[in-house]
């Protein structure tokens, strides 16, 4: 008997690779400095997405979202991604 699919919540974080210049991050850091937060040495700006995904288990959900990142969500020429899968909510 195959396991029933469950809903998983995926958090996807996309940022520019370390070697790629991030003008938005620099501008945000400058803004923080203007407010007096001189302790901030670096800001990297990026994208955050929340996905609801149906999968049999956590590994399957992770593999699926990783593939989505490679194919569409992330431009791997300049960006890198991190995915975290949250436990399905009790219904």
């Amino acid at each position, binding site marked *: 008997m195959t396991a029933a699919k469950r809903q998983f919540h995926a958090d996807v974080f996309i940022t520019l690779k370390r070697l*790629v*210049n991030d*003008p*938005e991050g620099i*501008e945000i850091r400058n803004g923080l400095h203007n407010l007096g937060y001189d302790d901030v040495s670096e800001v990297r700006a990026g994208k955050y997405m929340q996905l609801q995904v149906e999968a049999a288990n956590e590994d399957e959900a992770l593999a699926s979202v990783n593939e989505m990142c490679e194919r*569409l*969500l992330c*431009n791997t*020429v*300049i960006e890198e991604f991190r995915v975290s899968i949250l436990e399905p909510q009790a219904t």
Partner: protein
Amino acid sequence: MKFGVVTFPGSNGDHDALSAVEYGLGEEVAPVWHKSTSVDGFDALLVPGGFSYGDYLRGGAIARFSPIMGAVAEFAAAGKPVLGICNGFQILTEAGLLPGTLMKNPSLSFVCDWVDVRVDSDRTPFTRGIDIGTVLRLPIAHGQGSYYIDTDGLDELKRNEQIIFTYTDRAGVETPESNPNGSVANIAGVSNGPGNVVGLMPHPERAFDAVLGGDDGLRLLGAVLGAATKEAITA
């Protein structure tokens, strides 16, 4: 010769491209809607500028999965001429038909200006017959036009003569001042390996008549005609 202008929801350079071919070149041209799956009957494709799908996610990221893109990829693989302009350039890089990518301008500002662009190779159908080193005056209008490729990729482009257009000053010298968007090596346009697929940020289709401020763009669009004739003669 029949040109096709691939049109997505949010394209805004499609009518410029249609006009440039129809009135500037006097050649046959028709729009190709992104839902179509065929480019049969066309001899050259233009992927115009604009903000396809509102540039959601990244410029060109969604458009590259449009139904028409399979046919565009086959057309390109068959060695036929494809020109991506501005957003069209972004779409072709997202589709993996051209190397590198276009990033947000480091100024974070939309730039709208006329720039000098040097032709660095005449091995593509859009530059054939144009003397290498020719400086063209073309308009630009983009917020995400900063060409990026890593060092290895840049070496490969140089080795394979895939850098086709470079931002320069009027005399054809690349300077930091003549680079409008922080592009790596002042790159304004590149080709794929074989040279039949070309992408550039400047807009040749908006420079097809002196009344528009210049007609240098016609030389790129017109080069395809010469290229097609040449191929027909050699064949």
